[in-house]
């Protein structure tokens, strides 16, 4: 299991017509996991994502797929695509898409602050997860996350976030957002495997991470990310939901 949806569909064509897509996924996941006979591989897969912004069209299919797959409550998102209009001097306005999700950091500030160790980083594969049966809903992790990737789920009253669709990856499937991505912009795979597509993309392209100044060692990488968008975006929000009554209060001076 190491691909975008387009590559995934391509892989299906290479196997016999009777092979189910899930089996193909499971097979490649098993291959990525490796075995004792593969030699001195100390660890299994470490999941990561590369987002190729050149391919994202801002269709929000990933946003919807995530909501449907994970029963994300109304008004909350585990992932979404921010859309910006960027006007550089002397150039025409450009639409820029920026898919956002939990970065499953290697140095996650959310884990450190959790008072009851309900949020943790999974050993090996590296997903940052929440044990909802232990979470007290103090929202300290929501505050600590530099990416606004966490929220309080008002149906469970616990912290909620992207899990890289762990229930799917453990079954050999791709995360829902990757599976559904129309342009093949989201590529998911094993960062430990030098032959994986994500590892090759990281080798072959100049990649960036969001908020590098936070030193969180994210595992979500971006190809083609404009520096002006990698941190807090200093601009104007064209729209805020109804509570906003005076747009003047929401303009940032320059």
């Amino acid at each position, binding site marked *: 299991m190491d691909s975008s949806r387009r590559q995934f569909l391509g892989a299906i064509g290479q196997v016999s017509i009777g092979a189910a897509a899930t089996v193909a996924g499971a097979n490649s996941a098993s291959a990525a996991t490796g075995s004792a006979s593969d030699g001195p591989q100390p660890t299994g897969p470490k999941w990561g994502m590369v987002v190729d912004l050149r391919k994202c069209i801002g269709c929000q299919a990933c946003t919807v797929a995530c909501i449907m797959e994970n029963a994300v409550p109304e*008004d909350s*998102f585990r992932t*979404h*695509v*921010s*859309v*910006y*209009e*960027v*006007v*550089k*001097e002397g150039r025409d306005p450009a*639409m820029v898409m920026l898919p956002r999700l939990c970065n499953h950091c290697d140095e996650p*500030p959310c884990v*450190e*602050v*959790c*008072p*009851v*160790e*309900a949020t943790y980083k999974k050993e090996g594969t590296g997903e940052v997860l929440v044990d909802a049966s*232990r*979470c*007290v*809903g*103090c*929202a*300290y992790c*929501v*505050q600590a*996350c*530099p*990416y*606004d990737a966490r*929220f*309080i789920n008002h149906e469970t*009253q*616990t912290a909620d976030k992207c899990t890289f669709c762990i229930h799917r990856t453990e079954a050999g499937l791709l995360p829902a957002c990757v599976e559904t991505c129309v342009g093949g912009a989201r590529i998911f795979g094993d960062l430990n495997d030098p032959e994986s597509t994500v590892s090759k993309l990281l080798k072959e392209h100049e990649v960036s991470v*969001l*908020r590098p100044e*936070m030193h969180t060692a994210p595992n979500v990488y971006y190809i083609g990310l404009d520096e*002006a968008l990698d*941190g*807090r*975006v*200093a*601009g*104007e*929000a*064209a729209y*805020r*939901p109804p*509570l*906003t009554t005076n747009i003047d*209060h*929401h*303009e*940032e*001076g*320059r």
Partner: protein
Amino acid sequence: MQIHELVGAVHEAAWLPWAVQYFFLIGMSTTALFLTFPAFVFGRGSSLPHARLALITAVTTGISGPVALLADLHQPGRFWEFFVYTHATSWMAWGAWIVSSYVTLLLLYAWAVNRPAFYRWGQDDWRFAWLFRFLAFGSPANGFARLIGIGAGVAALGILTYTGMEVAVVYSRPLWHTPLLPFQFAATGAVGALGVMLILGRLFATGPIVEAKMNRMLALALGVVAIIGTLWFAVAFSGISQSHTEALASVAGFTVWQRIALWAAAAIVIPFVIALTLPARSGWFTGLIAIHAAWMFRWTVFMGGQAVPKVGSGLYDALMPTGIEGLMGVIGTFGLWIFLLILYTTFVPWAEADLPDDTSATTSAQTARTV
């Protein structure tokens, strides 16, 4: 370069106004506790009148504060997990232990200080004498109040440290991630505590001398707040501390924040001037402004801080969340606090709280009650 965010997620405030109430009340409680020390720990009789008011403030806010904290949890029934799964890297985890220690020691301290009066009320012939006999545990001795007070003081220092650090370590929010924040919480907490004491002094007619003394102490606390605030801006403008510079930059461009800064300055300067020029006749005015200043500081830090997106553009509307999670939380907590104030001042002989005295074990009932 111009950027307009066309599509973006709005993130609601995860720490609700309950949190503001907690930090407001516990800040006042801890600083008020220290204001009881001159009389009840160091035995200075001249400090008794304002120490009694400080003790009322410390106890009532010290109980209602943690209730607000519990309400801010989205799973309040799981509060026991703080003590079972304590995560040592989290300031909040330590806070759970510190808060429970503080409240326990604070209540013990208040009991010890009032024990001689409990004993006396228990000796009288009146309807609730049995209750006060029970509360006195058979003796008026309270020399140990000093020791318990010092213990509560240590816990109070722990509260001031953990509440400040808990917020200051959140580096994802520049406005919170400044080393001066814990000191600002402490100083504004003292302003709020003195504000409450001034109002109580007026309500219970403790007289112009006590009021003038408390107003002078308020002016001192406001002066400290002003110095820390000036230092905050100076460090932010100078660029010597990146976190301060980022904190200022994250809000300076917004009109609403510029107005908040002016409002805050006025909330410091106006009571400061009045407290110094009319110390004996301005308690209502300076007290209410002081309470407002302490509350507003926390509201601005917490709700305003959460209104600044971490990655998106503009501001969220977190400055005034509505409904049960907003206004009702504030009103409910204040309601509980006022109820506790009424309860305490009605059923506790607060005006008879005296200097700790080991020899009082032999003192007999001095007053007579026939209710």
